[in-house]
């Protein structure tokens, strides 16, 4: 017999260990991944909330700067005032937008220097643009004024013609006076007078002609000036000088004229022209002013243009920096992610490897194979194959079970052996004991038959007693055999026609129907252990008939079925069994009456009890002859698998 091995190294603990380790590994992985993922999230958030918008903003700025640059270039070439105004407007809007973008960018607090420089440049540009706008307004106003000036002068010049005509007419008038005087014979005209008058007339005519010519020239020159591009300062200067010269000539000439109202008017005219030319807000002044302003604004635009080229470079730089940051950020993100993935992968592979190893070594080899072998052994042995081998290895629960199984098997083998011995014994009893008994009976009988004449009455009676005793012995032997065999037959459940069997019993045990056998219960479809049940019923009913104290009687067999059990009842109307003997009747060899009065081995009920117990049922008696006749035997058997469960009936 194997000693039980203490399970030192329990399989469950091995599994727990392996799983625990895997769990720890996975937990570590989870923690690491969690930590990593916060990093990842931070990186990603930084990218999406900072670097990328920043880069986008920088690129927007860069684009805006390009646009603005282009506009500046356009400004340089535009002459048309309307277009210029619109362009300046657009440009200032763009600049303001740009300023806002830069401000938004500055909120990211990266590349602070660059951003500030950029911002300052743009502020500057905005201011300059305002200045430029003012300048341009000035320019246009000045141009208007210049136009006005020239118009004024031209009209004055035209006006002067009238005046010159008038002077001429005056002169002619004077001369006509003189001519009249000359025509007047009476008049004494001095040669001097004629000479004077002629030279006067000549001079006047000359002066006037010069005057007129000068006026025209002036007019031409003014027109020329008006349309001269202010760029060419030298040219303008010489023009101004020429114009000044002319006007001075004009003045001289006019002064040389005879004083008269018209001359005064003409003088005034010339003065007006001079004023319109030289004076405050005069053409020259305005023209010079225009030149200055134009120059200034050109310079402004130029410088602005250069500044903005630098701005453009700075914006590119900024965009590049932002882009670099985004790249760096996304690289970092990728690295973090790789690391994360690496952790997960490592932990996963580790756990997987561990679990596979566990699966193979512990589950497969240590548990499954052995348990399967053990199950095979248990099933085989339970099924009756006692020679089936039992694996005994290891130091764990499975080993403990194997050891127990081995003990169990040994017990079963012993049981089997003793059963076989019993059967052999029963066989021997059946044959070797019986034959002599039969012989004794027969010889006694024959003696009586053959020698009845010679035998005395006493001898005959002795021989008769001999025969009954032999008979008793024989019955005892049969019952003993039946008892020993009870439970070794088949206890298979099958559909049993109980009513039919009871009818057979009726014919066999009480063919003249002195005792009526009645059945109450389901007629078919109930699964019952046929063989043992037949024995039980036979014993109970023959007992009922044997012990009945009257010639006729009733025996009722009833059956109730439910899901779990078969409830049998055998009732008779015989004398019953006193309460005191209820326990004893089931014991071996117990009879209630002497064997001379009622032939019985005393084994009938013992056999019934043994069978019921073997079938895992329960049996009980109900009888109290002091109150009422009759005996009721109740026994319950477990229900079989099959339709019996479908027929719960009364």
């Amino acid at each position: 017999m194997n000693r039980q091995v203490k399970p030192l190294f329990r399989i469950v603990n091995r599994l727990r260990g392996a799983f625990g380790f895997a769990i720890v590994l996975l937990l570590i992985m989870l923690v690491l991944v969690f930590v990593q993922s916060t990093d990842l999230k931070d990186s990603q958030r930084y990218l999406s909330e900072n670097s990328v918008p920043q880069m986008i903003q920088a690129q927007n700025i860069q684009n805006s700067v390009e646009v603005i640059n282009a506009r500046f270039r356009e400004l340089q070439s535009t002459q048309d005032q309307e277009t210029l105004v619109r362009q300046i407007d657009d440009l200032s809007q763009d600049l303001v937008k740009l300023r806002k973008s830069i401000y938004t960018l500055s909120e990211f607090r990266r590349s602070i220097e660059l951003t500030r420089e950029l911002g300052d440049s743009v502020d500057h540009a905005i201011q300059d643009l305002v200045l430029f706008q003012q300048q341009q307004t000035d320019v246009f106003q000045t141009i208007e004024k210049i136009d006005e000036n020239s118009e004024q002068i031209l009209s004055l010049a035209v006006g002067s013609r009238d005046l010159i005509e008038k002077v001429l007419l005056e002169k002619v008038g004077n001369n006509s006076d003189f001519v009249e005087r000359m025509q007047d014979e009476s008049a004494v005209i001095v040669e001097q007078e004629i000479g004077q008058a002629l030279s006067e007339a000549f001079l006047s005519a000359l002066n006037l002609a010069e005057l007129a010519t000068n006026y025209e020239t002036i007019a031409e020159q003014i027109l020329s000036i008006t349309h001269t591009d202010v760029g060419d300062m030298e040219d303008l200067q010489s023009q101004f000088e020429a114009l000044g010269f002319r006007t001075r000539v004009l003045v001289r000439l006019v002064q040389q004229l005879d004083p008269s109202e018209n001359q005064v008017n003409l003088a005034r005219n010339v003065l007006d022209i001079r004023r319109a030319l030289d004076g405050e807000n005069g053409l020259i002044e305005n023209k010079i002013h225009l030149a200055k302003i134009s120059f200034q604004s050109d310079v402004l635009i130029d410088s602005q243009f250069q500044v903005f080229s630098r701005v453009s470079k700075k914006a590119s730089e900024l965009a590049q920096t932002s882009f670099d940051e985004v790249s760096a950020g996304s690289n970092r993100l990728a690295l973090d992610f790789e690391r994360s993935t690496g952790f997960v992968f490592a932990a996963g592979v580790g756990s997987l490897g561990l679990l596979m190893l566990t699966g193979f070594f512990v589950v497969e080899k240590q548990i499954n194979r052995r348990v399967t072998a053990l199950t095979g052994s248990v099933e085989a042995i339970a099924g009756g194959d006692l020679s089936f081998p039992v694996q005994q290895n290891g130091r764990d629960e499975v080993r403990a079970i194997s050891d127990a199984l081995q003990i169990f098997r040994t017990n079963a083998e012993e049981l089997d052996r003793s059963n076989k011995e019993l059967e052999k014994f029963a066989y021997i009893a059946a044959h070797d004991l019986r034959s002599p008994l039969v012989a004794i009976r027969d010889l006694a009988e024959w003696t009586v038959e053959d020698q009845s004449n010679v035998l005395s009455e006493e001898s005959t009676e002795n021989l008769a007693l001999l025969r009954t005793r032999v008979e008793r012995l024989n019955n005892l032997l049969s019952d003993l055999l039946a008892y020993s065999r009870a439970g070794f037959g088949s206890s298979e459940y099958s559909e049993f026609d109980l009513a039919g069997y009871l009818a057979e019993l009726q014919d066999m045990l009480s063919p003249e129907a002195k005792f009526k056998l009645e059945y109450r219960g389901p007629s078919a479809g109930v699964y019952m252990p046929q063989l043992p049940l037949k024995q039980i019923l036979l014993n109970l009913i023959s007992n009922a008939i044997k012990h009945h104290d009257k010639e006729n009687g009733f025996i009722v067999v009833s059956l109730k079925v439910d899901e779990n059990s078969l409830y049998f009842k055998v009732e008779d109307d015989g004398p019953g069994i006193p309460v005191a003997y209820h326990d004893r009747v089931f014991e071996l060899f117990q009879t209630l009456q002497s064997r001379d009065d009622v032939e019985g081995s005393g084994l009938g009920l013992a056999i019934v009890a043994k069978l019921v117990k073997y079938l895992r049922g329960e049996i009980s008696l109900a009888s109290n002859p002091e109150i009422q006749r009759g005996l009721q035997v109740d026994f319950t058997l477990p229900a079989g698998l099959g339709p019996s469960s479908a027929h719960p009936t009364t």
Partner: protein
Amino acid sequence: MNRPKTPTREVRFLIVDDDKVSIMALQRTLKKLRIVNQVDIAKDGLEGMEILQDRVAQHGQLPPYIVILDLNMPRMNGLEFLDEVRGDPKLHKLIIFVLTTSDTPNDVAAAYDKNVAGYIVKDNPKESLSDALEMIGAYSRLVEIP
């Protein structure tokens, strides 16, 4: 009921049983039933074989026999006897009734395995022996015995 039979061959009985009293019972019953066929007695299978083989030697072939065979005997028991008989070409057609106390299903099956004509259990009531022999007597009269 005795019917006149074709006079050529009369059936003989061979009783094979080791129990003297049992044999006596059989003989008495046969006498009571007025079955007057010749009866040979063997106390075990071996003797039974000897008797049969003698007869074969005497007559060249086996005359009609009905064997009443017990199972539990020394030297050669009933089942062994059956084996021998069924194995012998001159004897294998024998009509054999097993008449024994054993009611074990194994014995019954083994006997029928060797084609016995019938298996009768010696029950306690004496009537069964009488019924059995009466049946065998009728059998011997009605049935064509090889």
